[in-house]
């Protein structure tokens, strides 16, 4: 036996242990602030003011949640966020699925150009659209409305439409073309083929895109803060930023962290359920790009 073959496995175990140490350390760095947010959301103000952030809450102050939900209007913000998210996803998916289907399965003049326009628009900085979109919405009298936000999110420079089109084109191209031929012979119309065959078949793709864009819209802040200045139309991220700004005058740490928790809970829940679609969809899209 030579030296190498004896040393190899041992060195491998040592290096595995070192790597594990770093992986565990990073897991702590990622998880601790998140767990800590939930813990701090249950502390009373005095406890936070002690300056011992790692102490566990002495008593669980669940009223921080009811406080922020009712008195700080996070209940309203939550429903605004919900309406805007559902609206944006429904609209962008309907628009993306139809366009992606035609771009993926039909030949026509201008097809390449149209495809290019959608894909190239992903390169445009969102910030460039900030000022013009603000005035566009005022012109359309949609400023300070949830409808305005829905339109900006689904088809504006924020980019969830091109992403959905790009992703779904790949999905429709992967479906066998015999499906349509068989359906045509059976007397199915073009609409029938789409709604009865292609749309149901693309459900996994629609779910992946829908979830990824839900995260984007639910978390979006900059457009929402520029396009709404009426507290009745605030979304959760806008509400958090306003609350943080007000902390200069009156400190309510517990409720602020309860606000952060309210923003995080739905996405963490969604991530736990759809973890596979989120990470899988991302890597599938990346491989094509």
């Amino acid at each position, binding site marked *: 036996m030579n030296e*190498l073959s004896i040393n190899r496995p041992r060195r491998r175990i040592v*290096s595995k242990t070192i790597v594990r140490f*770093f*992986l565990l350390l*990073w*897991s702590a760095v*990622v998880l601790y*602030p998140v767990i*800590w*947010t939930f813990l701090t959301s249950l502390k009373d103000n005095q406890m936070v003011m002690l*300056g011992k*952030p790692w102490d566990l809450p002495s008593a669980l102050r669940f009223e921080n949640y009811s406080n922020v939900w009712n008195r700080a209007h996070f209940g309203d913000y939550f429903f605004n966020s919900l309406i805007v998210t559902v609206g944006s996803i429904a609209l962008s998916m309907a*628009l*993306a699925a*139809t*366009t992606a289907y035609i771009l993926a*399965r*039909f*030949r*026509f003049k201008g097809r*390449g150009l149209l495809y290019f326009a*959608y894909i190239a*628009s992903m*390169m*445009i*900085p969102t*910030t*460039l*659209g*900030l*000022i*013009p979109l*603000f005035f*566009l919405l005022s012109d359309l009298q949609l400023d300070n409305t949830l409808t305005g936000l829905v339109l900006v999110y689904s*088809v*504006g*420079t924020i980019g969830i*439409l091109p992403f959905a089109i790009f992703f779904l084109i790949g999905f429709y*191209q992967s479906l066998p*073309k015999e499906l*349509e031929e068989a359906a045509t012979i059976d007397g199915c119309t*073009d609409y029938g083929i789409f709604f009865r065959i292609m749309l149901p078949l693309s459900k996994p793709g629609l779910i992946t895109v829908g979830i990824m864009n839900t995260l984007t819209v639910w*978390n*979006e*802040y*900059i457009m929402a803060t520029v396009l709404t200045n009426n507290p009745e139309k605030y979304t959760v*991220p806008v509400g*958090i*930023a306003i609350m*943080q700004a007000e902390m200069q005058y009156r400190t309510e740490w517990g409720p602020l962290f309860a606000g*952060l928790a309210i*923003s*995080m809970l739905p996405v963490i829940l*969604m*991530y736990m359920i759809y973890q596979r679609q*989120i*990470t899988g969809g*991302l*890597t599938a899209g*990346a491989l094509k790009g």
Partner: protein
Amino acid sequence: MAAMTKKLRPASSWRRKLFMASFLLPTFVLFSVFTIYPLLRGLYLSFFDWSGGSETMSFIGMDNYKELFTDPIIPTAIANDYFLIFWKVILILLFAVFFAVALTRLKLKEYGFYRVVFFLPNIISVVVIGVLWSFIYNPSLGFLNAFLSLFTDTPVTTNWLGSAGSAIWSLLPPSVWAGIGFYMLLIIASILAIPSSLYEAASIDGAGEWKQFTTITMPLIWEQFKTSVIHITITTLNGSFIIVKLMTEGGPDNQTQVLGYYLYQMGFKQFHMSYGATIGVLILILSLLTTLILQRILHRETIEM
């Protein structure tokens, strides 16, 4: 694309054409109004002097662009943007590649756990991240000073976000913390696409892990690596100002000013809308130029597998 086109169905009858139009037009009309038109209007605005109010807009040609060159805040903002890009690219990709290689090559049992945990910050809103990290940096209550005070006799009261020297550096940890998971997943996907026979052959030849990393992994994930560098650059130029807005508001004394936040301030705080739009055009030009340059610098001959 060309091979694909042959298999596609032609638009033969008028009925078919009507069907296609009904599927394409609604999307394209809305996309034109909310994406293409704002872009053109942004460009158009940059040639005018306009506060955003109802009073007249006056055409001033290139004056807004000339102002960009004389405005002392613009160079600071550009420098800060590229400072963030530089360190984010290095730190995020260092961690992301290390984790991706560790998770794929060592075949750990807990692979799934790390994958799920490391991506977690990417699903959290940047607003939450900004508020959370502002509290971590809080001089009297925050986690960082409380932690450092464990090792000193007197409590540490460094004002991380408020001092000129440390403010811009303090913006890096939250950005890196939030960015790693996404790029790690992209790199994992491209490592998994490498045939394992290559690694087997290399280890029979006596190549160690490091040698395998430099001769097999890195060259074969290069395309994904390049895409990631460009993606970090664009998203930083475009989105870093949200963390700036939430954590420092560009301060102290414009020390952490970035282009995006300067645009926001000009437009929505100082009502100098047309100048704000001009900064938007500058951001677009910089992202296109930087992408082009990075494409050049990072170009390698693609390796056929």
